[in-house]
């Protein structure tokens, strides 16, 4: 049903979404934890910064990334010192861009999830004798799992729909940066409406299924919580 190039784009898209969501979760969880532990001017500033990708057009982010990734930029020169080739038009560059782009979709649910874990409850169990690892294993991890899960799914789904930034920094290179959204755009431009229909339908169905599943999961958790 799908041509090799389409399979390639589909797999690349899913791979990008999985990888960037995973790394994003790993990197932002400690930050979200800190943000959830109270309020301060510093926290507000960080929060505003992290929410920027939500309100800025992707072109702004794309523009800065184009400058940053270009071979002569200080960033690329720094990478070269570390033995890494310039990130422009490469899959690794897209991973980095998607992480920036999906940042608010991970930090917000994590922060809200973490905030549900009352400081009083942590203090109480610390006073009962639990050390930090025990608190992490018995309290923080089980109570924030739903939030981690929603954050991952949201970031995953959001990355599937990435287009504006990819258009600017990706270069539409098969196997490296040609994502499903780019391929659809390409097919429309080539007047290949049949393929564009098929791929769009596929993405639509997939995104709907993911979101539907997410809501089902959330409902399940709420019911379990009210036992």
């Amino acid at each position, binding site marked *: 049903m799908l041509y090799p190039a389409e399979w*390639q784009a589909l*797999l*690349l898209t*899913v*791979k990008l979404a*999985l*990888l960037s969501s995973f790394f994003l979760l790993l990197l932002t969880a400690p930050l979200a934890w800190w943000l959830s532990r109270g309020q301060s001017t510093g926290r507000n500033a960080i929060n505003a910064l992290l929410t920027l990708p939500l309100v800025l057009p992707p072109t702004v982010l794309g523009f800065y990334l*184009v400058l940053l*990734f*270009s*071979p002569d930029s200080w960033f690329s020169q720094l990478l070269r010192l570390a033995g890494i080739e*310039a990130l*422009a*038009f490469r*899959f690794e560059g897209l991973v980095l861009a998607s992480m920036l782009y999906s940042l608010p979709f991970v930090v917000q649910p994590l922060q809200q999830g973490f905030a549900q874990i009352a400081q009083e409850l942590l203090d109480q169990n610390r006073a009962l004798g639990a050390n930090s690892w025990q608190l992490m294993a018995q309290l923080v991890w089980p109570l924030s799992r739903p939030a981690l899960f929603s954050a991952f799914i949201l970031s995953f789904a959001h990355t599937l729909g990435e287009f504006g930034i990819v258009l600017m920094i990706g*270069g*539409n*290179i*098969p*196997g*490296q940066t040609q994502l499903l959204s780019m391929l659809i755009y*390409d097919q*429309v*431009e*080539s*007047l*290949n*409406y*049949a*393929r564009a229909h098929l791929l769009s339908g596929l993405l639509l169905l997939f995104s709907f299924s993911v979101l539907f599943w997410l809501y089902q999961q959330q409902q399940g958790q709420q019911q379990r919580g009210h036992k």
Partner: protein
Amino acid sequence: MRGLKLVFACFIFSGNAAASQLIAAASDLRLVLPLLLAQYQAETGVSIQPVFASSGKLSQQIQHGAPFFLFLAADPLYTNSLLQHCSAEQQCQTGVYGRGQLLLWYHSRFQTAEQALEQSQHIAIADPNHAPYGKAALAYLQQHQLWPELQPKIRRTDNAALVLHLLSTGQAGVGIVGHALLPESKLQQLLPKAQQQQLQLVQQLGRTEVVPAHLYPPIRHSWFYRAEQKHPSSVQPEVKAFLDWMLAPKQQQFWSDAGFKREHN
């Protein structure tokens, strides 16, 4: 569940397909270049993949490090500027290989092209800022005696191929496109069925006229080639071989069917 995780892991750590034999091409070649590449593959067995965008965008991308070793542009402006940015070890070359033609398409509810320009609400052209066919189309409209009335009706699309999209969906009554996007029927027959149908739709919907060449500055198609040393050298001879093959007299018929005139220097 564990099996699923394993599949995910395998797939995440699988290597990226080598983005090897890539060439960048201006959007007006979107329909005909794949045909030429297929022909090349049939003759030599070498597969080359094209990446399309407007000439301006592609030259920007190449300047910012995009891995293209051959670039087919629709204006020497872009290839020359890339040549200027080349370092000695990159061994860059450029050349002009043909002259593109403008086609004026108008909806069949209009009697003539002139009437269509006068009465249509929208005139679709590619963005003159970075698409050479858009620049030529704008120049043609500017010399037209009705220019003041035409100017507010101009609708710009991101590149040449998208003009066709506006026309086939009926969003614009008049459009100016590169001839290569509406090639001779001999070439059209070679296209995938879906594309053929769309082109037929456009042709049934309206009429086309070749815009006289003296009414706009020449659209000179140029190529840009660089042999960068730090990349695997195996890639480049194949791209270079394709360039030589593409420029050979044997392919001249193809280019003229695709709507190009021979460039006389």
